[in-house]
């Protein structure tokens, strides 16, 4: 099943390339959309066939791959990866639809790149063998490198090389750590790494190696500066995948590697991660206010929102220290983890939607600068309604998905330390300031110039894409229980692992 989800899109991508060679456009487009939709529908099997209430890996596949080095082709999902895989297949369909008429230059290659990337990302989330994980992790960079480098904006070469080197630099250290773990455990199985007895000094080195890799991906302050550049130069679809999925892979790494493999080091260095997360929330929140480029603003807002994810993951130690391991303390620690994961999913929807909104404007007026707009609501009322809705989700208004994760992380982190919660809660003000000031300058006001006056409202294709996202954002906000239910046992199990090893 998981193999199908990985290889079907890659095969589809290859077919799209082949079809694009012969017929121009149409066949390739429909083929790409067909593949995307089929993969999404197949992935829903993961959700409906998922056995809730267990933290064991499900849909497991295990075949020897390179027996000489004990490398297996080993796949499986739990409650943490399943929602992320669904998010991946969902976002890919939207990206294909969003690129339908917009991308003129080498469209088949564009669509193929996204399909191939989809397969690789599913691979990252389902790999249970360290080497397999590493292969997917690195391979994923290639299509994104091409997407930014070929279909990007004027400064795309700088951005794409910065993106590649930044993320590559991190992953090399991770590889070293993985190989070291192989010699400690005689296996490349990620699950075998969990709970390995390691000295604290070893753990700290491994933790730091992982940290570099994952912190760049999330991205955490101060290794976040590739993100605004990459987003600004990337085409809309590239930004969507980058924000919705790729950033989540770093956070996923913390859950799959750092916390369970090096729990003592995580506890030792939790203060650092919490500090970096809070800096992301406050510092980046402030920086976002003064951005002049819409995509940069949303990129910075992404960094701030991801700060909540890492805060939720690493505040658990403080919660335990503060509540002396009572049952309610354990509950709050789970809540922090759950809040972090919910925030990942929610941010996937909201940032994707916001980048698509900017894309809608960019396709018409060819500018991302805030000052080139004003009074868009006069010409595009339907678009304005969507944009305001997604802005409110970004602000974390209850009833939208953006609220759920932030709420849970703030509630839980107050049990660790009042000031963590207080600083994190500053996002209520900062998030509202940068998002709604953007809305004020772009959407509201008198029609600012002739370009705005010439804008036309959403077409059916754009309406479908934004409408589907709006539905997702509201559904998750009004009833997050089904999502949390899926992830809860796995996170509970993770917490047990982390706390059990002193």
């Amino acid at each position, binding site marked *: 099943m998981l193999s199908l989800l990985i290889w079907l899109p890659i095969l589809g991508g290859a077919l799209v390339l082949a079809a694009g060679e012969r017929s121009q456009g149409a066949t390739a487009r429909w083929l790409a959309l067909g593949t995307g939709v089929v993969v999404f529908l197949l992935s829903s099997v993961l959700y409906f066939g998922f056995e809730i209430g267990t933290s064991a890996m499900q849909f497991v596949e295990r075949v020897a791959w390179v027996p000489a080095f004990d490398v297996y082709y080993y796949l499986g999902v739990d409650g943490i990866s399943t929602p992320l895989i669904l998010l991946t297949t969902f976002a890919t369909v939207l990206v294909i639809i969003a690129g339908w008429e917009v991308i003129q230059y080498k469209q088949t290659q564009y669509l193929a790149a996204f399909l191939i990337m989809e397969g690789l990302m599913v691979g990252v989330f389902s790999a249970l063998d360290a080497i397999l994980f590493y292969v997917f992790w690195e391979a994923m960079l290639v299509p994104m490198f091409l997407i930014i480098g070929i279909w990007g904006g004027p400064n795309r070469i700088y951005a794409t090389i910065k993106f590649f080197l930044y993320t590559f630099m991190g992953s090399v250290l991770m590889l070293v750590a993985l190989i070291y773990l192989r010699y400690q455990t005689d296996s490349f199985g990620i699950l075998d790494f969990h709970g390995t007895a390691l000295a604290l000094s070893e753990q700290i080195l491994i933790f730091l190696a992982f940290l570099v890799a994952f912190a760049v991906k999330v991205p955490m302050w101060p290794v976040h500066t590739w993100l605004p550049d990459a987003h600004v130069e990337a085409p809309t679809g590239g930004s969507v995948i980058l924000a919705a999925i790729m950033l989540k892979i770093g956070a996923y790494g913390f859950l799959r590697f750092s916390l369970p493999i090096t729990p003592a080091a995580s506890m030792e260095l939790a203060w650092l991660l919490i500090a970096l997360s809070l800096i992301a929330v406050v510092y980046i929140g402030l920086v976002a*206010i003064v951005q002049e480029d819409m995509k940069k603003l949303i990129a910075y807002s992404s960094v701030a929102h991801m700060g909540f994810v890492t805060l939720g993951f690493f505040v658990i130690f403080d919660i335990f220290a503060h509540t002396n391991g009572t049952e*309610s303390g354990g509950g709050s620690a789970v809540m922090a983890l759950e809040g972090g994961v919910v925030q990942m999913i929610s941010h996937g929807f909201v940032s994707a939607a916001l980048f698509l909104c900017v894309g809608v404007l960019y396709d018409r007026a060819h500018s991302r600068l805030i000052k080139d707009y004003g009074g868009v609501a006069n010409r595009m009322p339907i678009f304005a309604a969507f944009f305001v809705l997604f802005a409110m989700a970004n602000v974390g208004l209850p009833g939208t998905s953006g609220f759920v994760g932030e*709420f849970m992380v703030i509630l839980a982190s*107050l049990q660790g330390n009042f000031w963590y919660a207080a600083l994190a809660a500053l996002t*209520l*003000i900062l998030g509202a300031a940068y998002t709604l000031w953007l809305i004020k300058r772009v959407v*509201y006001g008198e029609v600012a110039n002739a370009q705005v006056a010439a804008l036309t409202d959403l077409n059916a294709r754009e309406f479908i894409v934004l409408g589907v996202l709006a539905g997702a954002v509201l559904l998750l906000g*009004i*009833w997050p229980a089904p999502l949390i239910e899926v992830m809860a046992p796995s996170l509970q199990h993770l917490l047990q692992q982390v706390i059990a090893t002193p």
Partner: protein
Amino acid sequence: MEIVYLTITLAPLLGAITVGLFGHRLGRQRSHRVTIAAVSLSCLLSLFVLSRFVWGGLEPYNGTVYTWAVAGGLHMEIGFLIDPLSALMMAVVTFVSLMVHIYTIGYMHEDPGYQRFFSYINLFTFAMLMLVMANNFLQLFFGWEAVGLVSYLLIGFWFTRESAIFANLKAFLINRIGDMGFLLGIALLLAYFGSLDYQQVFAAAQTQPAQMITVLPGLNWSVITFACILLFIGAMGKSAQIPLHVWLPDSMEGPTPISALIHAATMVTAGIFMVARMSPLFELSDTALSVVLIFGAMTAFFMGLVGLVQNDIKRVIAYSTLSQLGYMFVALGVSAYAVGIFHLMTHAFFKALLFLAAGAVIVALHHEQDMRKMGNLRRYLPITHFTMLMGTLALVAAPLFSGYYSKDLIIEAAHEAHRAGATLAYWLVLLSVYVTALYSFRLYFLVFWGKERIDPHAKEHMAHLPRYVLRAMEWPLILLAIPSVVIGYLTVEPLVFGGFFGQALFVAEPHDVLHEIGQSFHGSWSFAMHAVEGPALYIALAGFLTAWFFYMLRPKLLPSIRDRFAVFYIILLRKYGFDELYIDGIAASSKSVARLLWQVGDARLIDGVMVNGTARAIGRFAAVIRGLQTGYLYHYAFVMILGLLVLLTWFVGGWRGWFI
């Protein structure tokens, strides 16, 4: 009854969705019919529920609608708590909302955003009902933020006006400052009392009221006091108390029906309602109640003063609202919760009436809001004039009018109370009576009496106003004027002294000032007659006479008075400088800090030194190394031969033992 409660909340939500999505296809008339039908249904059912509490002996209902999420063993739910307090709020909210819906047909008759407006006010009704019907903090916060959202959308309803979209952003941000405190308060209660459910939190707080929290090393505060103050910060945002009041006067940029519904009668009272709802918590903390008391009293007096110098008719009423909200907090601060809610109710009627009457004047004069361009309007708008007079009398607490009962009880309660700050509060609210009478009658005389200063164009417009427009606006005025006059007389006894609220409001025995006042209460009529004995009546009369003297008898004296007290006049005109502090001070300096972080922190340090610096360093290093690779074959051959020689020497030497 569950089905009734669900219908009450869902009817306006469905109305809002229907008209919001299909308003253009439905057209104007069907849109307002759908939304008004929805609110009427809610209103009728709410009145039914209230009546069952009054006469039917209905038991309070506390139940779950659905489980929102289970996180770490904590059940977060959407659920209703229907007791006399929420039932009264539901009735007030839906009734005023219904009046405003009807009025809107007239007020917005020319507006292109007609359907959108109806959709928003229906949505507001839903959000406000969710807030007052909540049985837990999650839903309370949901309603709290949702009314904020609708307020944002409605202040910025005319989104092409720069002032409107500035005001709505300001309102949202200031509210968010309050919400931050509110959210932290909720989180603190959860951390120490382990629940988000009202009843469970109250019960847990009763059993362990003395818990302490270490805020800073060495600084320990009582959890309950700290949590109550945080919650009150939320209330200060929503109910616009000093220093978070600055958004409310600016919110007058929204259409007038909104000013009446959201920014006077209902949403801004959410803070009052919340504190009353949390009475079992606040009762445990004298400190928190003193804070509430002092902020309320300050707002009541100082904001009333600002109302004296405003020329925009809506802004005068807005400052009056601030001041009256301050009164309500004073009542809460002296543990007279029932009186606070009582004043909330009477104020909802008469303030909605005042705003809607002002709106009728504004529409009649073709959107003129400057009182200096009005005068003598009683000739042209007799019904508006009469109802406005009723509202004004209620506001200044003329005996027998509704406002008299609620406000006089607040003053007496402040007088009787022994809480820290109560004496200060008593004098401030007493002085505020003078201020209230002065600005109220200033407005009344400037608008309806005196010389006609109306723009000829506006006068022309007034003559050609469609008949249905006036009718749609006058009916709600009349329907609101009736309770504004009589509701106090009819309900003071059961609401305040009759124990109507039962368990919904909790007052600790030693704090119960109402009990003492109740000893000397012998019916509504005698309570009104009692007014001649207290100072408040004469103070109000003095205010009336001052207004009459300066605005009717000797208007020419005003400029010289203004010059003599120029300093005070300018301070009031500048509204004590809060706006300057927030906009030019805090907002501007945050922006410069942000720019510094961005351009120095991100661009220069991280990108410039670390990222591109590393790249440059590697580049330089490579440039040096590159020198070795000349591309000339003979250079490479030479190096190879050299290398071979070295290696040979090494091997041969090792073999022959040269290096030993």
